[in-house]
């Protein structure tokens, strides 16, 4: 789009900016005049789906956002939850899907950069990153390129900033062939009474820009790249992807945290999507003020940039801060120490307008509320998709019941969705800052809270196959599983952030999925008492009319009062007993087993009864708290058999076998490979057996002792007949190398 700054704006130009005719008419009505090109550009980004949430906002009110520990819920850069000792955690998850598909390395890297800024902008020291990544059919060579690029981008950026990447998840499914997902989570630590907000308060206060210079990169990233479907021209959008500079980000972190030690900092905000536009308008909006911005003062990479380009640039690693008048020089001194560009670029005004000044002339003048609150909440149509009637049946009688389970177990363990993610996390510095108590490879990441005896646990989850078959229950399961992972590490959940990845919202079927997904998260969060404190919506994950499976990724954050009492998933000692918490139901719908062995994605999703879920989690936490057990592992994809194998082979030392005996009236493949929820595998010494059985009796949870740890084989007998017997060394080889072998193949 090359337009002269003097062009007269019309509806055609508005459409090229991604605005609808109706939206353009609304702008004319609210302004009472025709906007100039710079002003139109500002509307186009601020009213984009990406920035305005105009399709999704009406549904999000269903989410529970309050709780006794919540200091800051949705609406700011990130959510804040009290963890006691005068401290709080700040966290959020955010998507960088479209940029990562177009340019995987930089797209993923700048995704990390953006979420880091959301966290330290609040005054928090970022201490952990996690990622939820989704790729398409592994057989497509482009997926290998994208996997390598995304992982390298995250590795490069995260490692350089000195924030450890401590966990995450990776899935492959054909539904992501045209739209991979890169969702990045960050958690920071802050003094509970030192939370900074993005507010431009105090008439006359200076507005200071600091960080990288503004260039012509990323213009229209938010409006045209993030807020539209992909098509044949997507490759041409590569110039809208920004390029990350992790070194400058590291300096920004340190300079910002230095700066925020001072009482004269009024408000601070990063320049993310829509750059200088969103940061200035949002800061003014939250404070009920205005800002006069002198564009001549904005540090620029090149000469001749127009106000339009300066305001719409999405150059990375830039911040805006308002300080009390008279403290400009002290602030600039801090930025000089860190060799960062910085300049006073404006003043807070009483009049709630943002005015842009260039060469002494006002080149744009917009009322803040019209820009920020102007976009209509769209009443998108909703319709239950027809495909559901085709996929909701699964007759187990149509599936041959295997005599033995060894082959299926090996295939599942080497399925890229289940195989060890070591090839990935080896590339991430997951230890820096010395907080990581549980390294990647267990159910949840656990980090100590420096200066206290506490620890936080984090797990990010979503099984999008379930969400495709049943978005409501799939989303409930995502919340339940994530918080179950925390329970397995000994933590109780204190807050949740979500990244809602869906297709084109203009389709009623997509909005039905969206509504169901949000409702599912809401129901599970209410029941499990987990407040939703931040989130992100990513729509238009669709290419040539084919949308992704609904993917409402959730990250749940938990707390351990005593960091020493954290738990890991692998068996610890030969001779220990193995116990299974939770009831197994005869079902295989939506399972990895069904997909891998029969190439089917159908059936009802696994059963989740929230009361049983809460009971199982509480029971697991109780056993860990009392020091009764040596391991705890959630049963998820691949069911009980895969969970057992992982207990044997995922520890840091030599693998250890187990002998398991099961008795049941249900099909053996359903028992071993079905994915019924609310089940946890534990191991414990014989001395604890009676206490644990008594505790199970008291709590009313379903519990059975099913075997012993030891030997060189994982063996499972089912109703007296051997179903699985394989050396754990062999199982480990299948599981450990699969992803790395895939990623390293040359095509």
């Amino acid at each position, binding site marked *: 789009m090359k337009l002269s700054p003097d062009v007269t704006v019309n509806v055609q130009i508005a459409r090229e900016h991604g605005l609808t005719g109706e939206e353009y008419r609304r702008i004319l009505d609210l302004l009472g005049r025709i906007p100039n090109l710079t002003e139109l550009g500002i509307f186009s980004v601020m009213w984009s789906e990406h920035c305005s949430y105009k399709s999704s906002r009406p549904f999000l009110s269903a989410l529970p956002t309050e709780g006794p520990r919540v200091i800051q819920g949705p609406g700011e850069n990130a959510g804040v939850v009290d963890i006691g000792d005068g401290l709080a955690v700040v966290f959020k998850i955010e998507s960088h899907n479209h940029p990562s598909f177009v340019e995987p390395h930089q797209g993923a890297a700048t995704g990390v950069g953006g979420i880091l800024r959301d966290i330290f902008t609040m005054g928090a020291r970022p201490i952990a990153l996690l990622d939820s990544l989704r790729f398409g059919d592994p057989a497509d060579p482009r997926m290998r390129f994208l996997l390598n690029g995304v992982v*390298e981008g995250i*590795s*490069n950026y995260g*490692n*350089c*900033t*000195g924030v450890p990447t401590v966990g995450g998840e990776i899935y492959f499914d054909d539904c992501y062939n045209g739209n991979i997902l890169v969702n990045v989570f960050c958690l920071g630590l802050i003094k509970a009474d030192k939370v900074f907000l993005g507010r431009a308060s105090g008439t006359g206060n200076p507005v200071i820009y600091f960080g990288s210079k503004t260039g012509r990169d990323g213009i229209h990233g938010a409006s045209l790249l993030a807020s539209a479907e992909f098509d044949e021209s997507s490759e041409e959008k590569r110039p809208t992807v920004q390029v990350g*500079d*992790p*070194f*400058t980000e*590291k*300096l920004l972190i340190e300079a910002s945290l230095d700066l925020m030690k001072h009482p004269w900092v009024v408000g601070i905000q990063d320049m993310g999507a829509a750059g200088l536009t969103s940061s200035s308008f949002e800061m003014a909006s939250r404070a009920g003020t205005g800002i006069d911005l002198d564009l001549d003062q904005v540090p620029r990479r090149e000469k001749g940039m127009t106000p339009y380009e300066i305001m719409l640039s999405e150059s990375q690693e830039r911040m805006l801060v308002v300080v009390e008048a008279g403290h400009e020089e002290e602030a600039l001194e801090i930025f000089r*120490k*860190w*060799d960062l560009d910085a300049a006073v670029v404006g003043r807070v005004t009483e009049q709630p307008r943002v005015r842009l000044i260039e060469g002494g002339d006002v080149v744009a003048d917009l009322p803040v509320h019209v820009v920020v609150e102007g976009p209509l909440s769209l009443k998108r149509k909703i319709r239950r998709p027809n495909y559901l009637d085709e996929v909701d049946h699964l007759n187990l009688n149509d599936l041959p019941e295997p005599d033995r389970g060894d082959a299926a177990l090996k295939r599942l363990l080497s399925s890229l969705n289940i195989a060890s993610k070591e090839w990935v*996390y*080896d*590339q*991430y*510095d*997951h*230890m*820096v*800052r*010395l907080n990581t*108590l549980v390294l990647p490879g267990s159910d949840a990441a656990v980090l*100590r809270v420096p200066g206290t005896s506490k620890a936080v646990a984090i797990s990010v989850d979503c099984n999008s196959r379930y969400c495709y078959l049943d978005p409501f229950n799939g989303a409930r399961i995502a919340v339940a599983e994530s918080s179950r992972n925390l329970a397995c590490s000994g933590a109780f959940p204190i807050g949740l952030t979500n990244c809602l990845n869906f297709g084109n919202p203009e389709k009623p079927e997509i909005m039905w999925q969206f509504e169901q997904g949000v409702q599912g998260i809401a129901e599970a969060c209410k029941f499990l008492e987990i407040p939703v404190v931040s989130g992100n919506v990513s729509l238009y994950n669709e290419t040539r009319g084919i949308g992704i499976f609904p993917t409402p990724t959730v990250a749940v954050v938990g707390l351990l009062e005593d*960091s020493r009492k954290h738990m890991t998933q692998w068996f610890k000692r030969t001779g220990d007993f193995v116990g299974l918490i939770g009831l197994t139901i005869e079902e295989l719908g939506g399972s990895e087993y069904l997909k891998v062995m029969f190439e089917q994605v159908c059936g009802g999703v696994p059963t989740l009864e929230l009361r049983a879920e809460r009971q199982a989690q509480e029971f697991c936490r109780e056993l860990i708290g009392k020091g009764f057990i040596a391991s705890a592992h959630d049963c998820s994809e691949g069911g009980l058999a895969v969970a057992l194998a992982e207990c044997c082979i995922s520890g*840091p030392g030599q693998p250890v076998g187990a002998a398991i005996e099961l008795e049941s009236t249900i099909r053996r493949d359903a028992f071993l490979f079905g994915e019924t929820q609310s089940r946890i595998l534990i191991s414990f010494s014989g001395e604890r057996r009676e206490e644990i059985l008594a505790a199970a009796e008291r709590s009313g949870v379903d519990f059975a002792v099913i075997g012993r740890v030891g030997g060189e084989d994982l063996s499972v007998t089912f109703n007296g007949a051997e179903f699985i017997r394989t050396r754990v060394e062999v199982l480990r080889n299948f599981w450990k190398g699969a992803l790395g072998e895939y990623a390293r193949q040359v095509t």
Partner: protein
Amino acid sequence: MVDSIMKSAVVVFPGSNCDHDCYHILKHVFGVETEFIWHKEERDLSAFNFVVLPGGFSYGDYLRAGAIARFSPIMKAVTRYAGDGGRVLGICNGFQILVEAGLLPGALLHNDTQKFICRHVYVKVENAATAFTRTCSPGAVLKIPIAHHQGGYYADRETLSRLEANRQVVFTYCDESGRGGEAANPNGSMNNIAGIVNEAGNVLGMMPHPERVADPLWPDVDGQRVFQSLIESCASPAL
């Protein structure tokens, strides 16, 4: 805990990110009075018993790891300090900076995997008679993590023979039982070299991170040996 007059400096370059970790271990685990020194300072370091150049990505590792940091004002003082016999420990990026500054021979190339690697590895103490290893038994195997992209140690043949002859190779990568060789070499380092000392024995560079395995909160504490040795050798220099 050590005598409270023991003092150490941790140099902070723009992009250092293991500076806090080193500070934490020295100050809170070993009780050494520790001070951060900003790289722009041109101060005399002689008041410190030893100086640590921590890991991280000084100047983003742009150009080449350590290549820009060696021009930082503080490096003049570090060079002078080392020349006067002061003990300097460079970890990871610190090692890379020492090599770029010419305080240690050789170079650190990109890992032969062409990937960043973060994981626990084993290193063998090849020389237990240095100021940095004197509390280790000769041939001891330590479990210490690495976290780097440019850790492949390289030197020309002549330099390598000199290093070996002078017993300047202090740590080599090995397996759990102390065996070296290709299989135990994570990054393509020549002769499996993980850490070397200068000829005078007062400057050590190592790619593994001893500070990551030195806090008793974790089960692995082999890294304590390096700091313990350094502290003891400063307290009683004669071995």
